[in-house]
């Protein structure tokens, strides 16, 4: 009988009780519960509830403990191991360390050795685990029968069916009419697919990405001659202008850019911050961090950019010449600025500053603004960068981004045009979902219907795969081999962190099997003389474990070892450990998972050598490809050793590559690691054989630019529809994740719902209130969205988030509202290569309502000094200091050893909520569903609040002064929550933490009422983790049952683990050795944790800064979290 604290599987879900949530029954809604309760369940649980407490001690159930059959000297049950891999949640390709507890991946962290993100991850990166354990993933191959129903079948039958289809295509001679529409694969898998397609004489593959930056690539082709996306480095810039590019959210490589942006713009990182100007019709999260906001007319970006370029050229006394084929606009800069409604002196001032502050960086519009007008804006921006000499300093055309190899939107539209005409016989879908990303008017579904046979390697059902005929589910990136090069000269390696969760096969293995089946020889997979076993004779092989990622794992024994965990002898699901208190042990293995080793095609025994015949597994193909590249002539043992070191490190940097990780940040973490300091730089003799740099970009269609004039939009509606990419769902691929849905949008603070943003001043006269459903009519279709009244956008604009509105994508993503795709047109604009996004829509209020789950209903600070700002001039002077006085009748706490404290720099915080996602992942925080969030019952221990200015500095149009403030538990000295708890569940530990003992709490909730920061959350229902999501749980953190209060604990499990190993090794704790999950993943290092008693620690130094203050200091709670005021160039006067 389980103790009542753990009621995961057994307790019945709770019935719907939130306020009248209109709309159908939610697919995933634990708070909505199972509706009809049977009598037996009711009585059983009454009994359970009644006798729950007394049963904690006498467990009568029998629990098995399984030892190893063959032990692995390298793995200690209970101690986490980290495997280096790459985050494939978006094309940025950040390096990732996957923390694994006893064979279960539990936490994603950044790889400090990867020069791109240097140990940091964004919100989507942290949610990668919810992709791995997603309950809606395919459990095995599926075949659609005649009546359209999916039948599951064995792998052998599925592969046979595919082989039969391929041979029939061969017989019909329609090989040229097949197509491979896949994701962006530029590593070994990309090479394998190309070789396989070539072997079958299929046309080359299309790497489909919804955000393919066509406009930027065309502009680059005009300016630099190559249609590639240049690399950007924000750090050296002294002045930054962005015309809508969301480089802190979803643009290209947002974690890298966030770090660089903080290095240039945050007062915490530099005493001379650079100014950032944002221009665009809608203020997105990136614009919220700007110092100047030009609210342009919708579609006026080219005019404003042209005016800026023209005025800058005049100051540089040079003529602005345009590349061949581009007619210069026929009007002056002054008229363009007037048309864009931006004051001319503002543009003139910006031009002056661009000239004075060198180097600088000018960026064009964001991805949602990808039409022919955008090409001109990008072109003008790149020309401006050239004129200002930024090329080679902040703009690097020689280091093209991997996305340069993405297919043009026109190529995809042509493919489906052909399909509609019956010209496509066989389609391979490899993680591409055009049916959702492209507009409905593009006729994707009609094209899919006409294709006789579609094979999809998707991991879960999506809008495109539902038209497929055969599904061969691929491994999740976290359980598969591979590599990915974000830019030439930099490659990250993927290795499986754990045994596959479902009965899935890597696509590479399938292609190799097909090649063997049809007796084709692929270049990388030829038979080779037997190579001595790569593997140490005795022990099994574990994948490379990265030493000392966060300083915890300093056991030299776990040197990285290449190999696939599945190669272990059937290591038991719960390894040998008698009283394994980890909550994972108490969770039964998910029914669906087979936990067998991956593809059991004739599986070579781990210990003997590679088979003389052709390579059978993709990991062998990958290893052979890399080993021959890394150490071509070396002896096998040497090759194996280098391969294992590279596997453990997870990243390969070509010699001489410019961007190397910042020394201070990497050194401080790797002090104890046996690996040599600095990245693993290996000689690379054969540039040609270098792991696939992004392939040669497809030929660019002819460049004909219309003259830049006032924007012409299709449709006659009053509003301009503007789509913006979502920081939580990217292009919609992360929509089926509980964390991404429940963590609110950083600006609107709305979760779980899709909504249309409308300006407050426009909505009120029309009688539109928050939550009223608006019907939008565009020339191409109609859709309905609940209205959200916002202030950050142009009154003539309606804004929709890309990513929501899935029809068939899983329990978390379905029923979240309409899809923006219905409104968009697909006929290509102007030069027949760019789908037109910007259209005019008419909005009409319907009588229906759908209440929005808004987690922060108030944006004003009501003069309560929560998020404070200070002008740059007196940032370090006494004027910034808050008059804080510590007055108490009682003596202060005698902290004998440590006083853990945290410092948050509001200048560095960009409001990206990555810390909130990391907190969800680390502390087993449950997802509560939409109806719970409607009444603020989400369980986030950490929330990032957003305020618009304060009472003394009201926001203005030019300076919206949005301030983000992450609020964890402040661990107060005189905590108001402690003295009111009747059972000592909340009390103060002698290391300064505010303890919350879950099993002692009886749920009076007085502590939450009395907390002035409102950081305490209550378990209203028994939390639900649909299998296999419960495998993601961190065994070091107790799982809370219903009726228990919980809050941020400064990641006490990490504190305890570090203190324990320091005590046993008899050494003092190093500053920075303990990193709570939020600090570890913050891309801008805004959060610093440490021991306040140690005066040399970084957090103590930050507390002594002039601009340091505590929230609600008048209440004498003496919080341990101090904030550093946001430094702005100039503050708005009242």
């Amino acid at each position, binding site marked *: 009988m389980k103790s009542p604290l753990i009621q995961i599987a057994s307790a019945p879900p709770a019935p719907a009780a939130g306020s009248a949530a209109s709309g159908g029954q939610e697919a995933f809604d634990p708070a909505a519960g199972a509706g009809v309760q049977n009598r037996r369940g009711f009585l059983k649980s009454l009994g359970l509830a009644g006798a729950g407490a007394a049963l904690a001690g006498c467990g009568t159930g029998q629990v098995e403990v399984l030892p190893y059959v063959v032990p692995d000297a390298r793995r200690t049950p209970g101690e986490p191991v980290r495997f280096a891999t790459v985050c494939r949640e978006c094309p940025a390709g950040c390096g990732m360390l996957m923390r694994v507890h006893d064979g279960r991946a539990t936490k994603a962290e950044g790889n400090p050795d990867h020069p791109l993100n240097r140990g940091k991850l964004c919100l989507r990166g942290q949610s990668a685990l919810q992709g791995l354990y997603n309950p809606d993933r395919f459990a095995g191959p599926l075949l659609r029968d005649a009546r359209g129903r999916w039948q599951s079948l064995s792998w052998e039958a599925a592969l046979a069916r595919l082989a039969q289809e391929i041979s029939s295509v061969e017989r019909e001679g329609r090989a040229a009419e097949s197509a491979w529409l896949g994701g962006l694969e530029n590593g070994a898998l990309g090479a394998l697919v190309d070789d396989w397609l070539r072997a079958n004489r299929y046309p080359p593959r299309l790497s489909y990405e919804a955000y393919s930056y066509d406009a930027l690539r065309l502009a680059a082709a005009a300016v630099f001659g190559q249609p590639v996306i240049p690399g950007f480095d924000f750090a050296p810039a002294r002045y930054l202008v962005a015309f809508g590019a969301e480089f802190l959210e979803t643009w290209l490589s947002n974690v890298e850019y966030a770090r660089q942006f903080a290095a240039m713009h945050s007062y915490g990182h530099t005493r001379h911050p650079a100014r950032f100007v944002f221009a665009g019709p809608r203020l997105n999260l990136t614009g919220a961090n700007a110092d100047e906001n030009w609210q342009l007319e919708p579609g006026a970006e080219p005019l404003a950019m042209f005016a800026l370029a023209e005025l800058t050229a005049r100051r540089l006394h040079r003529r602005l010449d345009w590349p061949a084929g581009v007619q210069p606009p026929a009007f002056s800069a002054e008229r363009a600025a007037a048309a864009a409604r931006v004051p001319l002196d503002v543009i003139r001032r910006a031009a002056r500053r661009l000239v004075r502050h060198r180097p600088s960086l000018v960026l064009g519009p964001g991805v949602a603004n990808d039409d022919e007008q955008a090409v001109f804006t990008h072109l003008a921006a790149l020309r401006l960068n050239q004129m200002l000499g930024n090329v080679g300093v902040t703009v690097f055309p020689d280091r093209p981004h991997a996305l340069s190899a993405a297919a043009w939107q026109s190529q995809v539209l042509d493919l489906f045009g052909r399909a509609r005409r019956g010209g496509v016989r066989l389609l391979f879908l490899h993680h591409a979902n055009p049916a959702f990303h492209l507009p409905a008017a593009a006729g994707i579904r009609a094209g899919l219907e006409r294709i006789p046979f579609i094979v999809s390697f998707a991991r879960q059902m999506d809008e495109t795969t539902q038209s497929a005929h055969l599904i061969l589910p691929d491994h999740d990136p976290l359980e598969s081999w591979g590599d990915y090069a974000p830019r030439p000269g930099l490659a990250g390696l993927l290795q499986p962190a754990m045994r596959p969760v479902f009965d899935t096969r890597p696509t590479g293995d399938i292609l190799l099997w097909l090649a063997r089946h049809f007796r084709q020889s692929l270049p990388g997979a030829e038979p080779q003389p037997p190579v001595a076993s790569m593997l140490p004779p005795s022990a099994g092989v574990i994948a490379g474990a990265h030493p000392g990622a966060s300083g915890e794992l300093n056991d030299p024994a776990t040197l990285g070892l290449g190999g696939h965990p599945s190669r272990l002898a059937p290591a038991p699901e719960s390894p040998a450990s008698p009283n394994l208190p980890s909550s994972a042990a108490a969770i039964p293995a998910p029914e669906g998972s087979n936990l067998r080793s991956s593809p059991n095609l004739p599986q070579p025994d781990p210990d003997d050598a590679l088979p003389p015949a052709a390579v059978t597994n993709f990991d062998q193909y990958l290893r052979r490809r890399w080993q021959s590249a890394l150490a071509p002539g070396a002896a096998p043992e040497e090759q194996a050793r280098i391969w294992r070191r590279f596997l453990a490190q997870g990243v390969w940097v070509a010699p001489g590559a410019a961007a190397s990780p910042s020394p201070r940040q990497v050194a401080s973490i790797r002090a104890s690691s046996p690996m040599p300091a600095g990245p693993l730089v290996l000689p690379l003799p054969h540039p040609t054989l270098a792991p696939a740099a992004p392939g040669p970009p497809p030929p660019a269609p002819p460049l004909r630019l219309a003259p830049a004039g006032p924007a012409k939009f299709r449709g006659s509606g009053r509003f301009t529809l503007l789509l913006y990419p979502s920081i939580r769902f990217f292009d919609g691929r992360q929509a089926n994740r509980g964390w991404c849905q429940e963590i609110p949008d950083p600006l609107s603070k709305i979760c779980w719902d899709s909504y249309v943003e409308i300006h407050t001043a426009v909505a009120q006269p029309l009688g539109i209130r928050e939550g009223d459903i608006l019907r939008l009519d565009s020339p191409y279709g109609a859709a309905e969205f609940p209205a959200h009244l916002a202030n950050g956008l142009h009154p003539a604009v309606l804004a929709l988030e890309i990513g929501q509105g899935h029809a068939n994508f899983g329990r978390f993503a379905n029923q979240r509202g309409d899809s923006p795709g219905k409104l968009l047109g697909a006929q290509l604009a102007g030069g027949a290569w760019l789908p037109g996004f910007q259209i005019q829509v008419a909005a009409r209020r319907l009588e229906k309502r759908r209440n929005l789950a808004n987690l922060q209903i108030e944006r004003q600070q009501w003069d309560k000094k929560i998020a404070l700002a200070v002008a740059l001039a007196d940032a370090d002077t006494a004027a910034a200091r808050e008059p804080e006085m510590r007055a108490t009748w009682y003596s202060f706490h005698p902290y004998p050893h440590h006083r853990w404290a945290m410092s948050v720099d509001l200048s560095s915080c960009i409001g990206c909520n990555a810390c909130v996602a990391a907190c969800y992942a680390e502390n087993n925080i449950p997802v509560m569903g939409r109806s719970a969030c409607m009444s603020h019952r989400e369980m986030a221990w950490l929330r990032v609040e957003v305020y618009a200015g304060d009472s003394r500095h009201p926001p203005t149009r030019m300076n919206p002064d949005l301030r983000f403030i992450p609020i964890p538990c402040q661990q107060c*000295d005189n*905590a*108001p929550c*402690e003295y009111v*708890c009747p059972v000592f569940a909340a009390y*103060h530990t*002698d290391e300064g933490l505010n303890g919350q003992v879950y099993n002692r709490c009886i749920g009076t909730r007085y502590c939450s009422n009395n907390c002035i920061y409102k950081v305490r959350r209550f378990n209203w229902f028994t939390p639900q983790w649909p299998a296999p999501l419960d495998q993601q749980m961190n065994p070091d953190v107790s799982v809370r049952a219903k009726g228990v209060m919980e809050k941020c604990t400064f990641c006490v499990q990490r504190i305890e683990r570090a203190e324990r190993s320091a005590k046993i090794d008899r050494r003092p704790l190093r500053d920075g050795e303990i990193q709570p999950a939020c600090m570890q993943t913050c891309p801008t290092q805004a959060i610093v944790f440490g021991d306040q008693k140690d005066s040399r620690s970084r957090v103590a130094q930050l507390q002594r800064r002039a601009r340091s203050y505590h929230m609600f200091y008048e209440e004498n709670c003496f919080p341990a979290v101090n904030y550093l005021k946001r430094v702005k160039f100039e503050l708005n006067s009242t």
Partner: protein
Amino acid sequence: MSAAAANRPAGTPLLGLAGSFAGAEQLLQARRLADAAGLDSEAFVPAPEEALIRKLRPQSTQNPVRLWTLLGGIGGGAAAFAMTIWMSKNWPLVVGGKPIVSMPPFIDVAFEWTVLFGAVFCALGLLRIARLPRLRFSPAYRPEFVVDRYGLLIRCSPAEEALARGLLAGAQAERIWPVRARLLPPLTLPAEVEDEEE
């Protein structure tokens, strides 16, 4: 009268004579006569009035119940302080920066227990002094003593029966009857045991 005495079963000793009176004055008069005659007497009062009780027992105004209440109160207060301080010191957890032994809340607990134990011991004192609860009634008890009649039992030996009867008659007793000293079965009224002569 003698007939009743005649059919008195032999062997049950006479406890005394009881008389019922209509008003308090007659009872007081009877009590004064009995005291004058040096006979021990026990009064029964339907409406518990302070003044009447003071007149009936002039000498013993101080009732030991007060002592029980005082001791109970002091004991409760002390017990509360002991409990709260000992328990706080047994596992000293710092809470809200407040000292381990913080007097304001402890004083409240002490006040509550002072009142509680005072009241409980007061009740116990009543039960002890009035020798309640009893299942067997005093032989002299009549149902109307609780409703509207006053009663007086004069304990006398058979010899003094005549004197007692005279006293009661002198105080205008409505009815006078002999009272046997016998043990009544639980919860049964004396009247139901044998038919007392009117």
